[in-house]
């Protein structure tokens, strides 16, 4: 059954003939050996030496790939005749011959121009992305402003449903991670401050660190990874299934139906989550201090009340809804950018998470400057 393909060039009555035998199928071709074939192909590249007849009477199995290889061995052979034992094989041969295609050229890559083109595309893409993002923000604000006059259009049911996903379901993970960060800061604080005999300042380190930056940043990063990506994937899949188009065709504005509830849900949920994360972080700090410093919880929280001003807490809470809005907006925006395929959903989900974390940190820096200038 599996006899390897063989071939030879012979002279018959002054004409050159290619004689083939064995199995010529896509599975057996490999045994011919690449260099061997290549050498023979170049040998018949001159028109005089090109076989006029291909004899396949001794071929057992033949398929299109086999015919293609035989034609190549005959130097192109668009006009070569075939001598076959079975009519079926001759038919197959002629079909391939008539669809004969030249070897498609090797895809040519010029590295420099490829690099320049990629950079150019990249820059143009960022430019278009910024324009589109601004347009998206504008449209969202217009829709939100329009909804102010008819509060029903805020669709409270959808908002509550989204809040369940982005707030309630995130409580455990946010709480656990913030608790652990509280423990870590307290432990590091005790270790470092002990060198100056100032280990009681660990309470300030934990309080200020968690309230001002870590609680809100950590929560924002978790939310970007879990909810921002989910928004992109949900809306992106709807885009692929043409559900968004169906909505538009029914006269429903996707911004109002898909985007606004998600943004509002996250704007409401973020401060709640950050508050929860702050408390978990403080608890972690308190637990660590009770272990390493022999502080009781009462001592820890009394010192916290006396030394850490309430504005440290406010600065974190002010940032929370803004971060929530930017994460939700980018998640929805990228979801609506999805075009065509499943691959696009994956790419844009990645981009959505990266961009929202990027913007969260940029905004955090902006907030730091604002708070520095305003002295809080």
């Amino acid at each position, binding site marked *: 059954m599996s006899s390897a393909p063989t071939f030879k060039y012979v002279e018959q009555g002054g004409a050159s003939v290619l004689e083939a035998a064995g199995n010529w199928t896509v599975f057996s071709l*490999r045994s011919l050996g690449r260099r061997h074939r290549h050498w023979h192909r170049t040998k018949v590249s001159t028109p005089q030496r090109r076989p006029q007849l291909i004899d396949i009477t001794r071929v057992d199995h033949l398929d299109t790939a086999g015919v293609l290889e035989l034609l190549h061995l005959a130097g192109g052979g668009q006009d070569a005749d075939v001598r076959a034992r079975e009519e079926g094989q001759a038919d197959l041969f002629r079909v391939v011959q008539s669809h004969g*295609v030249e070897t498609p050229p090797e895809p040519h890559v010029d590295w420099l121009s490829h690099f320049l083109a990629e950079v150019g595309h990249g820059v143009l893409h960022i430019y278009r992305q910024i324009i589109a993002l601004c347009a998206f923000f504008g449209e969202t604000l217009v829709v939100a402003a329009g909804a102010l006059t008819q509060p029903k259009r805020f669709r409270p049911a959808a908002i509550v449903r989204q809040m369940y996903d982005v707030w309630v379901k995130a409580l455990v993970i946010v709480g656990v991670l913030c608790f652990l960060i509280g423990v870590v800061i307290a432990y590091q604080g005790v270790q470092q401050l002990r060198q100056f005999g100032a280990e009681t300042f660990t309470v300030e380190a934990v309080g200020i660190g968690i309230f001002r930056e870590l609680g809100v940043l950590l929560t924002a990063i978790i939310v970007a990874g879990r909810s921002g990506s989910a928004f992109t994937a949900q809306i992106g899949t709807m885009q692929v299934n043409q559900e968004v188009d169906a909505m538009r065709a029914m006269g429903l504005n996707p911004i109002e139906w898909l985007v606004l509830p998600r943004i509002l849900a996250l704007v409401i949920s973020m401060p709640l989550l950050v508050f929860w994360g702050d408390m978990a972080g403080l608890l972690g700090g308190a637990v660590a201090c009770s272990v390493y410093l022999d502080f009781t919880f009462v001592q820890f929280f009394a010192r916290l009340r006396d030394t850490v001003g309430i504005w440290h807490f406010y600065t974190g809470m002010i940032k929370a809804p803004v971060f929530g809005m930017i994460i939700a907006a980018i998640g929805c925006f990228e979801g609506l950018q999805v075009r065509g*395929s499943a691959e696009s959903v994956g790419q844009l989900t990645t981009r959505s998470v990266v961009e929202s974390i990027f913007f969260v940190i940029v905004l955090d820096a902006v907030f730091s400057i604002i708070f520095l200038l305003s002295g809080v």
Partner: protein
Amino acid sequence: MAEGGQLVDHRNDRDVVLSLRDVRTQFGDHVIHDRLDFDMFRGEVVGLVGGSGTGKSVLLRTIIGLNPARHGQIEILGMNTRHLHGKAERSLQAHLGVQFQDGALFSSLTVAENIMVPIREHAGLDEEDMRCIAALKIALVGLPADTGEKKPSELSGGMRKRASLARALALDPELLFLDEPTAGLDPIGATHYDELVRDLQRNLGLSVLMVTHDLDSLYAVCDRVAVLLDKRVVVGTIDELLAYGHPWVLEYFRGPRGRAAASGQERKAAFNGK
């Protein structure tokens, strides 16, 4: 209750390429097919029809091994699929071509790369040969040569179906499965597609099992038709099925659409006869 099975023996000394014996499929307690007996012979085109929800696609998935049968045996190209594992299973799959309903082309690859995937996996040819084969298959299914460099998302629905057929043909399968190949094509495109399937079947010596709702395809392309009735399958030519006289079959072929397709086929035959 339909009795099922083959109405008239059409074997004519041909190899059996696909044989189902006493096959049952079910999801949970819900039995979809029961006691299916069905043979397909080398070189024939069989259409698989049935009302919505009778499990045409489920049967196709069961045959190609995506959905295990609860009972009975399925033999493809003389091999019992139940006992196949590992290498033997892969080598059997290399001899089957499947065109899924919506193409199922890998969206991250170009059309040519899509066709090269099974060749690379099963035949291990070098890059240049694979590109040649891919270009040939693209030409065989009647797509322009530059389609090879395009991504599936850049193609129209009809072109995607052809591209997906080209991928199914990549390894010159002996047995080709088509799931609703003409659904969603315009009548001209569907007619061309039918002719394409018929030509390829003749030229490449394929055996084809196609799930279809297209009555024109049934008349134009299929040698026999397998009808799913009351969880069983009844197989025969259209005339035999009409003679069999199950009410669903009669309504299917004698309904207004069925009559139109039949008379269209007669007109065409008369025209060709002149």
